[in-house]
């Protein structure tokens, strides 16, 4: 680092993203470089890896929240074509499983059909334990303890409770309400899993559907009994993660154990039902909020008690007050454990839960004071950015023309099909960090490659890896080959928390600039000029003072007969930033006879600093909005607490938004003066469902405080209005 700093100090230009007018990639729309592979089915995902002699694996999940299984693997082993059948008992406690869906056995066979046969052939007797499948069971007197310290945990509180109570007493309106959210599952289209290429010996290649290429070799080596550094991870393309594929999970570890047992490569991708049970989830949430405001529209006080419902995990929540700024607040965080799969990060961990509670309560307070909920929001945020974004979202959604700005119509004059508008805000930190290395090579045949041990989750990483290098070298996008998803390409962080682009893009820029400078230094004497006079533009290298001193790209590269240019770049803090704001608005139509909710339109205004690829960034925003719509209206993992069985572990019974659930979406990249890169994966997924809930209330007066916002709950809320 210090070497490079001094290099810059010697007079090299400061590293910036450059003059927007001169850019050919950053800040513009660019179709993905891997698009042609993906639209033709040629992109190879982990699920698609085929190796000579490869076996197919499968797992057996325990169907109960707590049980002690006695396994008979002999019938599975006896089947022709079954090569390995093993018990998975490492994470059991005295033989007892700790969560519904915990894998208890795994098999490997010559075809996927035979592997399924082998799973069915395993004999199991389950000794059932007492369990806590939901919050009510976990908090009941005499409940089975999920952990040795019990089930309900209270963490350090923040704020002055007495001051909040006093302030509430002086408010003109006080709302106290409980907001609840079920567990949501990630439901990645490509299930979790890995293909482990191990045939005995001391090395292995692991293909994994993961968000962290470099997170694979360590745990895989341990599971295979190999020395650290003897495992290579490959992630060419991966079919969605959303936070659930940050770690090398149960499927990958089972694949390693099977490969070790069989001495042959094993392909183990979970089936859809298993995927619902043991790959993590977004924690459910139970939040009690008491907020008070004065008639002038000022939020004065907020009291909050939160319980995350993350199964055997702690779940997540960013804490209240979320976004809005009361004069005083008191926040009591905590969590309740159950015998269900541990929550893991899911797109903006904890934030959508916090958003639903606070945005609903803000709306309830505005209505109690007969205030415009848009103005009430603007009055209680300190950032001018939020006010500007809310105004823009309001304009796009048609708030000024909307008749219900001061609240829903009285039941007596309510139309059968009631239309309403609601709002919500998003906040995310994100930002870049050091660690990733990017290598750029310029070869004498004119080819350019950029490589990094990072991965493309569908966010467009591969495209900006090529694009930033192409821009720096004055080449078309197609002239640069981007290589990702191979642990041999060097360190890079796992893709979580919207950190990949702000971490990696600066390293790409740094590597590209260093490659360019090295190339210029080589070419300067050949062109009879000084390196700092050279420019790379439109596929040529030319001297600024004399257009005749010029070499076409291929000619210039041909002078590299002695060898290629290969340089490595690192994170550059001056190219990245953190902290994003977003405002969303939703317009819905509620059928007040059936309770059915149709989202007519959603608007998102989102900043993210410099969007490296505006086309992909808008896709991220729309994807976040659709995810929130689906969370708001449809999704809920259901476990029968008494039978202890998963009731909807399939796409038939667990509904996610389809193409007909989504009408008009408007994704607006807010004008952001920051010429630095910030991620955009998380923030657009935060407030959409809250805006929909508020729109339902605004349409017809039905306040639903429990997700998903299903017709039965809307009708119940309407019935309560009389």
């Amino acid at each position: 680092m210090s070497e490079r700093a001094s290099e810059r100090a010697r007079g090299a230009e400061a590293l910036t993203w450059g003059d927007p007018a001169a850019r050919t990639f950053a800040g513009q729309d660019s179709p993905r470089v891997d698009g042609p592979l993906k639209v033709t089915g040629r992109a190879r995902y982990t699920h698609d890896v085929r190796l000579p002699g490869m076996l197919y694996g499968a797992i057996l999940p325990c169907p109960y929240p707590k049980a002690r299984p006695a396994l008979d693997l002999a019938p599975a082993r006896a089947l022709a074509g079954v090569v390995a059948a093993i018990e998975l008992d490492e994470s059991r406690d005295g033989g007892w499983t700790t969560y519904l869906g915990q894998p208890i056995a795994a098999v490997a066979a010559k075809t996927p059909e035979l592997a399924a046969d082998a799973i069915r052939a395993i004999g199991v007797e389950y000794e059932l334990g007492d369990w806590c499948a939901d919050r009510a069971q976990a908090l009941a007197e005499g409940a089975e303890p999920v952990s040795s310290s019990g089930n309900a945990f209270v963490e350090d509180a923040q704020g002055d409770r007495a001051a909040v109570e006093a302030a509430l007493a002086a408010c003109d309106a006080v709302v106290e309400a409980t907001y609840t959210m079920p567990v949501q599952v990630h439901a990645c289209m490509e299930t979790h899993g890995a293909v482990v290429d191990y045939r005995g010996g001391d090395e292995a290649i692991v293909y994994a559907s993961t968000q962290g290429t470099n997170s694979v070799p360590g745990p895989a080596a341990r599971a295979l009994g190999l020395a650290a550094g003897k495992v290579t991870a490959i992630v060419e393309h991966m079919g969605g993660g959303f936070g659930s594929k940050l770690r090398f999970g149960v499927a990958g570890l089972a694949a390693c154990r099977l490969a070790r047992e069989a001495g042959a490569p094993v392909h183990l991708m979970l089936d859809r039902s298993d995927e619902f049970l043991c790959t993590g989830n977004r924690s459910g949430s139970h939040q009690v909020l008491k907020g008070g405001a004065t008639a002038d529209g000022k939020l004065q006080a907020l009291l909050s008690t939160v319980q995350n419902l993350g199964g055997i995990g702690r779940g997540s929540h960013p804490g209240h007050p979320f976004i809005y700024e009361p004069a005083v607040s008191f926040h009591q965080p905590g969590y309740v454990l159950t015998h269900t799969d541990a929550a893991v990060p899911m797109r903006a961990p904890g934030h959508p839960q916090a958003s639903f509670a606070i945005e609903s309560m803000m709306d309830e307070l505005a209505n109690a004071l007969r205030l415009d909920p848009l103005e009430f929001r603007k009055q209680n945020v300190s950032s001018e950015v939020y006010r500007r974004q809310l105004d823009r979202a309001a304009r796009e959604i048609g708030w000024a023309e909307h008749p219900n700005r001061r609240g829903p119509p009285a039941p007596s004059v309510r139309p059968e099909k009631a239309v309403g508008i609601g709002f919500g805000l998003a906040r995310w930190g994100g930002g870049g960090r050091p660690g990733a290395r990017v290598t750029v090579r310029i070869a004498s045949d004119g080819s350019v490659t950029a490589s990094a041990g990072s991965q493309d989750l569908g966010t467009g990483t591969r495209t900006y890896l090529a694009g930033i290098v192409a821009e720096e070298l004055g080449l078309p996008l197609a002239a640069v080959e981007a290589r990702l998803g191979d642990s041999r390409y060097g360190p890079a962080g796992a893709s979580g928390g919207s950190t990949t682009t702000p971490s990696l893009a600066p390293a790409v820029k740094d590597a590209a600039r260093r490659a360019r400078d090295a190339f210029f230094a080589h070419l300067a004497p050949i062109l009879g000029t000084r390196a700092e006079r050279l420019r790379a533009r439109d596929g040529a290298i030319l001297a600024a003072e004399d257009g005749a001193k010029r070499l076409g790209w291929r000619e210039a590269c041909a002078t590299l007969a002695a060898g290629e240019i290969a340089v490595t770049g690192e994170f550059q803090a001056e190219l990245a930033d953190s902290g994003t704001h977003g405002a969303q608005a939703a317009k819905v139509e509620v059928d007040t006879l059936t309770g059915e909710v149709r989202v007519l339109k959603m608007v998102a205004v989102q900043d993210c600093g410099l969007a490296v690829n505006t086309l992909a960034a808008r896709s991220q925003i729309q994807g976040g909005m659709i995810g929130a719509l689906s969370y708001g209206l449809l999704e809920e993992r259901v476990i029968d607490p008494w039978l202890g069985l998963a009731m909807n572990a399939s796409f038939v019974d667990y509904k996610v938004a389809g193409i007909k659930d989504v009408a008009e979406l408007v994704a607006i990249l807010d004008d952001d003066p920051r010429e630095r890169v910030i991620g955009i994966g998380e923030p657009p997924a935060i407030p959409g469902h809250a805006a929909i809930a508020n729109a339902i209330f605004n349409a017809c007066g039905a306040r639903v405080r429990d997700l998903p916002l299903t017709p039965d709950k809307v009708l119940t809320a309407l019935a309560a209005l009389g």
Partner: protein
Amino acid sequence: MSRSPDSKPPRGAGVTRRTFLVGAGVAAGGALGAAPATGLASTRAKQAAEDDLLRLDGPFVVSFRLNGKEVRLPAEPRTTLLSLLRHAADPPLTGTKEGCDRGSCGACTVLLDGQPVYACLTLAGNLFGCEVTTVEGLGTPEELSTVQEAFWKHDALMCGFCTPGFVVAVTACLNENPAAGAEEIRSACAGNICRCGTYPQIVAAALAAGARMQEGRR
């Protein structure tokens, strides 16, 4: 394209057509009924049931046209078209994705005699004499089909795992009616799930591709 009623059952498979279809109905009846995309298959089954039927009670070799070429692939009575494509075909055709294997996500959508079907709900024994087109048969990275190019240019893909299924579903829709509007396109894609959330771009891509196909026909 038409299915020849006299297409030969595989030699030595010990097959009569009547009992196979009875068996297949038991194995896949619920599934056939559940999928709107399999209407053709059930019509086909009904028609065949009135003629002579096929019995498959062990491994057999199924012959059909795959992306324009005759293929003969080893199968069992339970083998799905999805499994044939991804495991039996040589080389394996992995563009057709397995998202659920239960007819509920659409990632495995292929064309069967021009109609979109879920490959995971289509049994190998139903394929004799049929024409199957997968996403690989629609275009190549160097020579994209109109629909594939529109998906790419409109960013109608993110992780890309559901993309082949959507490309095939949209292709089937526009082959039928290149003037299809947004609602018709949404209906054609109602059996497909995209978890990254690219639905608006898919509709935009399909409308653009439809417009180009209409120009081509004029």
